[in-house]
């Protein structure tokens, strides 16, 4: 299948930031969120796609056509930056109309086109205004309108909402979701905010140190975070090391973690060392043993209770390892837990995921890296059992 936008084995070296064999493909109509730690090369990837930087190796393809040497103006990729980059010497109307003035076919309909897109993003009443007088949210809408008016093949968003307050961010997400549906726009959105991922993304790609580590649907990435970095980056705090003891007839894998026997629904080979992860919100906390449906029940001593927003984070010390559980405030209150108390952390076998580290571990077959175009190194590294 021909992808709309694709980068293959992209190498860019800007000193502090670099891409090292980056592969990524986006299908037409996809909303792909690109996540990764600071300095991973997310913005460099976007700017290489748009034509800011010339890779010293690798290709950028649009509809399967090599556009690596094309100048930015031929690629028809829209870009919206975190700090809006509205032209300060132009008012809102002229900012939005900027791209259309270059297109002869639109010159006659320029005014109506600008009013139409401005109305769609809710800033028609601001068209005569100087951009310095707009709020952050209004500026972001203007920047979005300016990028969309030329009907780009792909809209690239570089942390486009991160300069906005929480309420504006939520409004922008809603607006963008509607616009993407209406205008059938393909989007690649660099973000740090997992709420963007959950609200908008069909696909997620994780970039670390200039390489795509994993791609897949948000559900897949969050439930099956692949290498150790992805697990930690996505907040899989409880990362444990263990050895596989047995795989029973019911499909459960028995794993020894510091002499405690745990059960995972992910398959693995006996005697392999594995790395495990369970998300804090999937742990139930009780003062005594819970029903057998939760196969993993670990006696712990409470070491810390910390309220963070609507949740209470409970740290429990088991035999040789610690776990963190996130429970609701009312749940924690009902249990009447205090630091120093004994309790039980319980979770199902399907919540305990087997994840991989770079060389020593292998990954279960139901949890493959669903790379659209798997880089050779990654494919070998995470070969499934």
């Amino acid at each position: 299948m021909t992808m709309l936008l694709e980068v293959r084995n992209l190498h860019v070296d800007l000193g502090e930031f670099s891409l090292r064999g980056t592969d990524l493909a986006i299908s037409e109509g996809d909303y792909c969120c690109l996540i990764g730690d600071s300095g991973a090369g997310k913005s460099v990837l976007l700017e290489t796609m748009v034509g800011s930087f010339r890779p010293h190796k690798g290709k950028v393809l649009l509809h399967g056509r090599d556009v690596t040497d094309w100048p930015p103006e031929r690629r028809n990729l829209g870009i919206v930056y975190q700090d809006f980059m509205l032209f300060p010497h132009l008012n809102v109307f002229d900012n939005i109309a900027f791209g259309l003035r270059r297109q002869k076919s639109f010159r006659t309909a320029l005014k109506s086109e600008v009013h139409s897109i401005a109305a769609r993003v809710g800033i028609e009443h601001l068209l005569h205004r100087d951009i310095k007088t707009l709020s952050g949210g209004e500026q972001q809408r203007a920047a979005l309108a300016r990028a969309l008016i030329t009907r780009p093949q792909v809209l690239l968003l570089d942390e486009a909402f991160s300069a906005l307050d929480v309420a504006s961010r939520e409004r922008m997400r809603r607006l963008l979701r509607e616009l993407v549906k209406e205008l059938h726009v393909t989007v690649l959105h660099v973000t740090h905010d997992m709420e963007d991922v959950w609200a908008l993304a069909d696909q997620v790609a994780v970039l670390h140190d200039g390489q795509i580590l994993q791609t897949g649907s948000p559900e897949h990435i969050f439930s099956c975070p692949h290498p150790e970095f992805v697990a930690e980056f996505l907040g899989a705090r409880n990362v444990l090391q263990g050895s596989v003891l047995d795989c029973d007839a019911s499909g459960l894998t028995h794993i020894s973690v510091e002499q405690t026997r745990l059960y995972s629904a992910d398959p693995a080979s006996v005697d392999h060392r594995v790395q495990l992860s369970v998300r804090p919100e999937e742990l139930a906390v009780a003062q005594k043993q819970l029903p057998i449906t939760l196969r993993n029940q670990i006696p712990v001593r409470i070491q810390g209770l910390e309220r963070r927003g609507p949740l209470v984070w409970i740290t429990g010390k088991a035999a040789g390892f610690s776990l963190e559980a996130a429970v609701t405030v009312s749940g924690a209150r009902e249990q009447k837990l205090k630091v120093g108390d004994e309790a039980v952390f319980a979770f199902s076998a399907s919540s305990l995921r087997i994840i991989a580290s770079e060389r020593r571990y292998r990954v279960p077959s139901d949890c493959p890296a669903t790379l659209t175009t798997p880089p050779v190194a990654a494919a070998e590294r995470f070969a499934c059992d």
Partner: protein
Amino acid sequence: MGNRIFRAGLAGITVLFVGMLVWAMLSLIFMPRWSEVVDSTLSEEMLYSIRLSLTTSAVSVVVVMILAVSIGYVLARFRFPGHQLLRTVVDLPMAFPELVLGLCLLLLFGHDPLAGWLKKAGIDIVFSKTGIAIAQIFTAAPYATRVVYAAFRSINPRYEMVARSLGCGQWAAFLRVTLPMAKGGLFAGAVIAFARCMGCFGTVLILAGGTRMFTETLPITLYLNISYGNLAMAMTSGILLILISLAAIVTFEALNHEVVL
């Protein structure tokens, strides 16, 4: 107590220096009789000198700004081996005494091969009015380039990238986005270049010569008349130069408050 002495010491040095400077300038302005200043200003020599200074400076500023925009943009946007060396070479004439710069230009334009080529093309630079403009351009260009470079540097290159993603070529993005955004810096560069051109003395003296009523710009008028002992004419040209510099620096500060040099 220590803090007070520290503050008082610094303030004292500042007041002393600025006071002397203002006193020196006021002495020039208030020393001559005003009737003498008016007569000198309206004299044929002074009018010639003012006209020549304004004409050559206007032409030079246009050339200087073309150079400053080109070199400033190259330095601000392009990365290449020898970037720092180029910056240093462009800045170098600012550290030169003007007489040395004039001597360098005299050797460049007065000797082959350049002198021969220019002669064939019918262009006289040494000891000519064209030489005044050339001297002014080489003197003022580094100052204007520095200001324009700072203006371009202060503009995020992503503005151009957005413009290009919207269909502009590099030239169109430069014209439609970067130049308008840098206009404060460009005006400031032009003002400082004009002031440098008007006040250019040593370079003009060596390259174009100080011939009365021929290559006589305002600083040359001051120099020639002080040599002849005609103090009124000398002081009048001094006053005119101070007024031009004052106007330039006020305009520069007003336009350039956002450009960090």
